[in-house]
């Protein structure tokens, strides 16, 4: 029945491409989450009036984040080719897409983390300080838990952007559903393959959005 609708689809390839997309998105997302929170915290804590106020560091991080956030992803991949070869040792395969995916997504997420942290009630931070809390206590027991819904909804948005990036990463031979849709679908004129790849990407996006929304609403006790 399915083969009537998608006559040109080779199911092993679809399965492989889906796995590649999930692999790239999953690993990149995890790294982005950690790196983004670190960068976001640094951006927040070194900003004016905060615990580690430091204009110099703040300006530098801010500039780096803005630059990498502004470079179109397809160009970023090309610019990062030497770096990728240095780190991964190859330019091919899903693994080779990871450095570009992480470097593209982490600054994007860092800004969202910064915004989330800014929304933490200043009074609560002041209250923690008045109790004699250390900066590390304030970070782990006040800033991160109090901004968690924003951090989760931010990573959801970032995850969906990352899926878009993985499709583009197909251009450098990273594999995945985007690559499949382009090479097997568009270039060989197999519209059914393109359509199926699109449906699968949409499905992944919906599932991620659903999980993200669910966790956010569970976390938010405001």
């Amino acid at each position, binding site marked *: 029945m399915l083969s009537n609708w998608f006559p040109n689809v080779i199911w092993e390839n679809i399965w492989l491409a889906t796995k590649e997309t999930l692999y790239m998105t999953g690993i990149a997302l995890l790294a982005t989450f950690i790196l983004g929170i670190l960068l976001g915290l640094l951006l927040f804590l070194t900003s004016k009036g905060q615990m580690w106020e430091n204009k110099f560091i703040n300006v530098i991080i801010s500039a780096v984040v803005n630059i990498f956030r502004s470079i179109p992803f397809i160009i970023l991949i090309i610019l990062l080719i030497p770096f990728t070869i240095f780190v991964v040792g190859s330019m091919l395969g899903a693994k080779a897409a990871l450095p570009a995916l992480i470097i593209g997504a982490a600054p994007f997420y860092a800004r969202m983390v910064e915004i989330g942290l800014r929304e933490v009630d200043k009074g609560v931070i002041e209250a923690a300080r008045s109790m004699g809390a250390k900066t590390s206590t304030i970070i782990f027991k006040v800033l991160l838990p109090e901004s968690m819904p924003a951090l989760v909804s931010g990573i959801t948005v970032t995850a969906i952007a990352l899926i878009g990036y993985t499709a583009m990463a197909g251009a450098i031979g990273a594999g995945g559903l985007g690559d499949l849709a382009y090479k097997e679908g568009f270039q060989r004129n197999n519209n059914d393959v393109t359509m199926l790849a699109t449906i699968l990407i949409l499905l992944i996006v919906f599932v991620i959005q659903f999980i993200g929304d669910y966790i956010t609403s569970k976390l938010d*006790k405001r």
Partner: protein
Amino acid sequence: MITLSKVSKVFSTKSVQSKPIKAVDEVNLTINKGEIFGIIGYSGAGKSTLIRMLNGLETPSSGSVVVAGNTISSIKGRNLRKARQEISMIFQHFNLLWSRTVHDNIAFPLEIAGIKKSERQKRVNELIKLVGLEGREGAYPSQLSGGQKQRVGIARALANNPKVLLCDEATSALDPQTTDSILELLVDINKRLGLTIVLITHEMHVIQKICHRVAVMEGGRIVEQGPVLDVFRNPAEQITKRFVQQVTEPEETKDTVEHLLEHYPQGKVVQLTFVGENTESPLITKLIRNFQLDVNIVQGKISQTQHGSYGTLFIHMDGSDEEITHAIEFIKEQQVGVEVMSSAE
């Protein structure tokens, strides 16, 4: 317990033209152990900055702040954090962590102090009982009323057995009834635990209700201070008089007096001011018995303070001029303030 000497705080402003703002200006203040000390002032008077210097949330530009033997104005890092555990603070907007339950909010300062989990549990339960929140341990702040939130704030502030409790407009976001219940809780804690309480407010009602002594702040300076009853009796500064009026003269009094003066061309409308014990003596009875007068009570209000009561009473006396003069003399002998009201014209 608390000594401030020549404490000033200057905030530099961004623009070149405007002068730096002197939020607190050469303040000297001593607060005794076990005292409830109120600082009253309008917004911008510098009282917020002043109270934040007591736990080092602000550092003074000059002068020294000593609280419970620690020179807060000069210690830093670990010593300051340690000292802060003895100086708790509650806030106008409660500042609870929304992500934690009532129980976990109260446990937070204990976690900071590095108390073991089993002991934390015990202490939290004690505190919940102390502030009357039994059964609400598992609720999140968003599920509580304002008064309950402030109770959590108080429990949290008391967790590490502090020596001083700072109240930053702690009742300003609450309705009058809730305000009173929170104030009663503070008095109770003060008596039971012997805690020194410093509170800032713009409501004289709060001062009148729970404070032993009061300082009035204006433009960064303390313009007047003393025992609450003394300040009520003899407010020296214009601003203090205005604050005292907040609790003694309801808004409508003026209109009522005008109205009365129109209605009773005969006799006199007199304002009586009572302070301390004489509020309890039956003055009106004596007046009627001893003089040929008709006495009509127009309006009155007696306020309880921590050291006795304070009140004003408006009465209308009708009779011969001579009797009225004698009656006024008699009232003066009773240590009651008398002021004959006349029309505004």
